[in-house]
């Protein structure tokens, strides 16, 4: 495997684990929102989502460690900003969150920026 392939793979794993974690926590938070305080927590602890989120974050910790071992810190953090876009896409697919014009503009700029940082090394 070439170094570029490894970097791309690690970046992709980071993106997937970050997005899965965020979406799982969102799902945990919005289920049965009538319950308040302790009751809400008890409900969340009885469902799989909060554990899936935690598991995804542990996986992301390892993936981020590996990713930062292969790229400069500034490049890594900049490429990681693609996570914003992935989470918004996931929010649209899973929770029906809207894509307004402003959000589309923001998402396009971030994607273009990430592509430039990735290609311009």
């Amino acid at each position: 495997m070439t170094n570029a392939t490894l970097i791309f793979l690690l970046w992709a794993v980071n993106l997937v684990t970050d997005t899965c974690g965020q979406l799982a926590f969102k799902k945990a938070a919005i289920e049965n929102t009538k319950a308040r305080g302790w009751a809400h927590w008890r409900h969340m602890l009885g469902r799989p989502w909060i554990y899936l989120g935690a598991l995804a974050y542990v996986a992301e910790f390892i993936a981020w460690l590996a990713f930062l071992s292969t790229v400069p810190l500034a490049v890594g953090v900049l490429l990681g900003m693609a996570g914003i876009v992935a989470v918004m896409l996931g929010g649209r697919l899973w929770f029906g969150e809207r894509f307004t014009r402003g959000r589309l503009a923001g998402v396009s700029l971030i994607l273009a920026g990430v592509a430039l940082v990735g290609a311009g090394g």
Partner: protein
Amino acid sequence: MSPRAFFLSGFLALLLFDTFAQVCFKLTAIHAAPLTFDWPWLLRALTTPWVYCSIFGYLGAFVTWMTLLRHIPVGPAFAASHLEVIGVMVVSVPLFGEVLSGVQYLGAALILGGVFFLARDETSEAAKEKP
């Protein structure tokens, strides 16, 4: 403290905590090298103090973020939670001798522009939802 001073110091604290966490994470990765994807590698990472400094930074950022969210609209807060990009770009030059190419700086500017658009959009959406 005036609201403006609270706002600014909150943003600054978030920026510092996030930058600190990322720098410590990079130091953890350097300390754990070579990247062998095995237990000894993970163990090397978990036995350096840097990884715990990094977790401290993340916790500090989390507390700051939740405090900010109680007082300011989600849009600016969202933008603020991604400003560590600037902090990281600045400190990684002297700390790690990292130099970005011109194209990469252009990419960084586009990303920050995108974050600004998203932050502005969240603010106007939140304003619409208020009765």
